[in-house]
């Protein structure tokens, strides 16, 4: 028996895969079954969600020791805790005894978790603290096998908490690789280089999780899928008003100065900043109308004069899409997290972010900036994302025509000089090209062709990397 066909305990697992992914994923196209086969979805929940670093939570959701927030690693229910010593852990929300969840709240603070079924209790480190009437057991409970299972490797990058069950994964910062740079730039435009979560727009769609990832750096769909949004944002324009929102897609985006860049491990980046005026006040000038806009702008301009533009830009959407495989997206001011629910059901939560201004870099305007940011962030989930999600659902519907086997992603492929490499060796293409999708599918293919050796941790004192 090889590790490839056994569970961690050595129990034989069903065959690792019945699919030959060499026949399903080509350079220019993928087979529809990767979106429609239940067995492939089940494999993804091990090989991708578990096999690579998966985003779990943000540190601002658990600011103090003993805070916790519910999450999932694939389909596994997880409690992300900052334990009583301050260490961040990702505990399996599963009683060691008979399997019940031990925590049924979404978020809160607790030094311990007690199973509602038979009362087994655990410290928030995962260590078992006691069971009712222990003299009914022949063994004692000092054996770590009774502790809650936990994700063996949990690491943060600048507030973003990730976990993997795969001991062979490189450290998180190496897994992120080149995508750290745009992520750093996105964070560093805010005072102190940090943000806090401030509730979310929570959406879902009846479609496979990959349909969302496939769209995440897609500049081809914008003026079609978001046609009503673009019309809406510009309906009040008059005279010399600048075109609002994503209007820069409207004419020949293939030749526009912005681009898509592809990093390692399926991460990619659509940088739209070269398409807009990024001098102070430039972002604010293309921000679509939103509640309170003129009121707070007037206050900030009166107070700050020439400095107002750069402060108003902090309330505006940053024109980037930063996509971290498989489930984290940074776009505008949002942190968008996708969560597979089933083969054909996906939750997508758009966490809002607020600025923390400890050093008064915003000159007393942080509350006004945040009041604006709440409203700018509600716009796209309400008036843009819903149309994308409908289109994803309709892809899932269309793919039920199973004899029509292929889904194409070859825009930009085979045209000399169109895709370039930057000085770091990363591929760069026009924003409407599907180069990001082709490269991600090759990463996905490699993952799906190998059964990772997934492990859990129960030894509380062990210090993961």
């Amino acid at each position: 028996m090889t590790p490839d066909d056994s569970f961690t305990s050595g129990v034989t697992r069903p065959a690792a895969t019945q699919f030959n992914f060499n026949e399903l994923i080509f350079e220019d196209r993928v087979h529809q079954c990767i979106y429609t086969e239940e067995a492939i979805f089940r494999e993804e929940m091990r090989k991708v969600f578990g096999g690579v670093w998966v985003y779990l939570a943000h540190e601002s959701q658990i600011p103090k020791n003993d805070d916790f927030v519910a999450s999932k690693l694939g389909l596994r229910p997880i409690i992300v805790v900052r334990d009583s010593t301050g260490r961040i852990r990702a505990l399996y929300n599963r009683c060691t005894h008979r399997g019940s969840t031990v925590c049924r709240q979404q978020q809160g603070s607790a030094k311990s978790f007690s199973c509602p079924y038979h009362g087994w209790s655990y410290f928030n480190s995962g260590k078992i603290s006691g069971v009712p009437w222990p003299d009914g057991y022949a063994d004692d409970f000092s054996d770590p096998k009774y502790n809650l299972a936990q994700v063996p490797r949990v690491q943060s990058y600048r507030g973003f908490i990730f976990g993997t069950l795969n001991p062979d994964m490189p450290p998180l910062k190496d897994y992120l690789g080149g995508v750290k740079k745009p992520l750093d730039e996105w964070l560093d435009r805010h005072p102190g280089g940090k943000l806090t979560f401030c509730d979310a727009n929570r959406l879902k769609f009846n479609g496979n999780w990959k349909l969302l990832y496939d769209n995440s750096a897609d500049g081809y769909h914008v003026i079609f899928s978001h046609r009503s949004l673009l019309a809406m944002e510009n309906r009040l324009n008059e005279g010399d008003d600048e075109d609002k929102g994503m209007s820069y897609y409207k004419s020949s985006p293939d030749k526009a100065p912005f681009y898509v860049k592809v990093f390692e491990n399926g991460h990619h980046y659509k940088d739209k900043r070269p398409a807009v005026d990024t001098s102070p006040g430039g972002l604010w000038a293309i921000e679509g109308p939103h509640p309170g806009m003129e009121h707070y702008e007037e206050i900030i301009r009166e107070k700050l004069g020439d400095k107002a533009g750069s402060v108003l830009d902090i309330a505006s959407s940053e024109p980037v899409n930063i996509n971290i495989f498989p489930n984290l997206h940074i776009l505008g001011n949002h942190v968008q997290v996708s969560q597979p629910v089933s083969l054909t059901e996906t939750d997508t939560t758009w966490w809002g972010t607020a600025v923390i201004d400890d050093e008064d870099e915003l000159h007393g305007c942080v509350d006004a900036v945040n009041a604006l940011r709440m409203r700018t962030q509600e716009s796209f989930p309400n008036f843009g994302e819903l149309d994308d999600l409908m289109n994803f659902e309709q892809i899932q519907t269309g793919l039920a025509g199973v004899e029509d086997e292929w889904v194409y992603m070859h825009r930009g492929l085979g045209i000399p000089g169109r895709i370039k490499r930057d000085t770091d060796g990363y591929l760069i293409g026009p924003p409407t090209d599907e180069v990001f999708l082709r490269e991600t599918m090759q990463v996905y293919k490699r993952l799906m062709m190998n059964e990772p050796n997934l492990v859990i941790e129960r030894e509380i004192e062990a210090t993961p990397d």
Partner: protein
Amino acid sequence: MQHDPSRTSYYVGDHFYQSLVDSYADWQTDDAEITDPDLRDTCRMLLEKEARLLDRNKLDDWLTLYVPECLYWVPATPHGGDPRTEIAVCFDDRRRIEDRIYRLQNEFAWSQRPLSRTARLITNISAFSTKDPDTLMVRSTFLTNEFQAGDKRNYTGWYGHKIGFIDGGWKILVKQVNLIDCDQNLRNLSIIL
């Protein structure tokens, strides 16, 4: 200077936000409940008219029930929260409601193509007085059934309408929609609740 709230948003500021938070705190008390059947009936008829217009997709007519500086608010937190520091499911001032209607009437709003059909039930309507005799708070329970593209779903919760007596009639100042699952992932909430 007079501002047209359909074009600019000057009224959504600290004062408006604070009055919103204050209006929606501690108003559902027995001693403030209105027992006058005529006034209760007036409130009921306003809410029923609103539901009727929305079910018939008469969105422009629906908006005439609202004052110019109005609000349509669907909190993402079960107790409403403070919209200055929390994202809402929807937080529409006059201009954004008009944006929403404009988009729904645009043939390229794919999330509403085909258009949803809706049937709204409103019940348990109770009205409460406020310090201002020309302002009432109305609580009701709703069940909005939606059919779209072969699929039926529903939204339920309670409405908190803040209404004002203006120019001889009652108009809606604020509509707060409290979904029982406001903090859960919702599928294609593109209709007006």
